[in-house]
């Protein structure tokens, strides 16, 4: 019984920390883009603008929670919730540190992939339920994009699974004590990262919400709290893909010995994840958006064969004892 209470407390604590972090990322992103583009960015609310997200939140809470009369009411309300819930669920299998982590599910990696594939319903249904042409086009793009990139997102991490022989994320982290998988699975990592950006439909792969052609894409008709939920889902998604890259390829909370004793494992994990989040933001500032057909042909013609080739090579090395004997 006591164990159950502690588990529930842990879950509540993780959620209570993740959601404000996702909100803060909005400010971090705007501020960092500002600095990289030689501007200031939001710096008025609080010291160096750190309270900007709070101000945004207050504003968005004050807005009318409006459902367009021409929309499919039930699905319209359900869509943003699905997105946020699916991303939050994925954190259930995330090993944050040696002792922190909600569940050591044996199929942890599959669970993550399953939740990532369910998250697409949020965007597709939002596009459909809005009953508006911009939103519908955005939703259709999202469906095609995510289904395509999901295929080799799964394939890219199979190299890691081959090397460790498990889907359990905690065991995958522990298997990296002799060396992070980035050394042997560099190609897999690149493919996972690209697929991850496409899955969380962030720039440069934000075609479902491309402002220049679709106003705001799938969330054109959304406002107030429901719009905020989409935003929350997006920034949680960025955090999730960053954390997953760290767990799969960068040793999770592990660090080489002289560094490991400097900080507790959890802080190392957070530091690595933060670096990845910054990288995601830098990508947004520096890359243009591809055309939709370019995006799909890039996925199927280059990424998929590369992922298959990486898997084949890993299998050959594993069988001949090339990596770790």
């Amino acid at each position, binding site marked *: 019984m006591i164990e159950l209470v502690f588990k529930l407390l842990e879950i509540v604590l993780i959620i209570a920390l993740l959601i404000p972090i996702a909100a803060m990322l909005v400010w971090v992103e705007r501020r960092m883009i500002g600095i990289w583009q030689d501007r200031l960015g939001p710096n008025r609310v609080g010291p160096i603008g750190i309270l900007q997200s709070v101000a945004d939140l207050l504003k968005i809470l004050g807005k009318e929670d409006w459902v367009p009369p021409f929309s*499919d009411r*039930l*699905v319209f309300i359900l869509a943003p919730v699905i997105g946020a819930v699916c991303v939050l669920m994925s954190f259930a299998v995330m090993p944050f540190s040696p002792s922190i982590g909600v569940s050591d*599910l*044996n*199929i942890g990696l*599959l*669970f993550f*992939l*399953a939740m*990532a*594939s*369910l998250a*697409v*319903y949020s965007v*597709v*249904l939002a*596009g*459909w339920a809005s009953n508006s042409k911009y939103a*519908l086009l955005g*939703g*259709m793009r999202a*469906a*095609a994009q*995510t*289904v395509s990139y*999901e295929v080799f997102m*799964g394939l890219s991490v199979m190299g890691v699974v081959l090397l460790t*022989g498990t*889907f359990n994320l905690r065991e995958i982290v522990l298997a990296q004590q002799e060396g992070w998988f980035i050394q042997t699975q560099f190609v897999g990592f690149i493919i996972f990262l690209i697929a991850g950006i496409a899955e969380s439909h962030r720039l440069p792969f934000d075609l479902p919400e491309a402002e220049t052609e679709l106003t705001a894409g799938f969330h054109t008709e959304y406002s107030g709290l429901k719009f905020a939920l989409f935003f929350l889902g997006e920034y949680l998604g960025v955090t999730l893909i960053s954390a997953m890259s760290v767990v799969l390829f960068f040793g999770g909370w592990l660090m080489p010995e002289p560094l490991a004793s400097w900080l507790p494992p959890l802080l190392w994990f957070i530091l690595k994840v933060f670096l990845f989040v910054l990288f995601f933001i830098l990508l947004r500032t520096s890359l243009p958006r591809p055309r939709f057909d370019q995006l799909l042909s890039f996925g199927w013609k280059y990424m998929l064969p590369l992922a298959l080739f990486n898997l084949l090579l890993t299998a050959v090395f594993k069988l001949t004892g090339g990596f770790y004997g």
Partner: protein
Amino acid sequence: MMILSPLEWMFYLAALLAVVASVKVITGKNSVHSLLYLVVSLLAVAVCFYLMGAPFAAGLEVIVYAGAILVLFVFAIMMFGLGQDETLHAPKIASMRIWLGPCCIALVLLVQLLYVIDSSALQEKLTSNIIDAKQVGTLLYGPYLLAVEIASFLLLAGLIAGYHFAKPDGQYEHLNIQQSTNEKGEL
């Protein structure tokens, strides 16, 4: 009176959800709502799989069926602009005779289901061991290798057919030519 363990409660709850959702799939008038119920039904079946000791099958159920195939269904429905009440297009149920065939098939399934529920030996077999990904893999690439190969040939055929349909034909080239002349015109 049988006393159910919490795990069994979970199982029957998920099973009930699956049945209710499946009924809603075929009684709904809005095709997107029906599809959503189908997703719920598949998720409930995945939970059943998990509780029966097949976590790998549960994971694949969600990833492949709920996460990929049904997304394509939704995609197709959105493409064709369906979704509202489609009973107008549905053929009128002509007579009771068309119910005869499906009823016979369903009856056979029902008898099988009752037998499975009744036989305790089979139930023990279902819940006693956990089947992980490795076991599935060794079975697929051991005794069932031929079946896997045949299935992959079938998929290859589908892929080639898909390529054939999507291949740029005369109409597409015509569009390309038009586009290039437009660009020249601008120059």
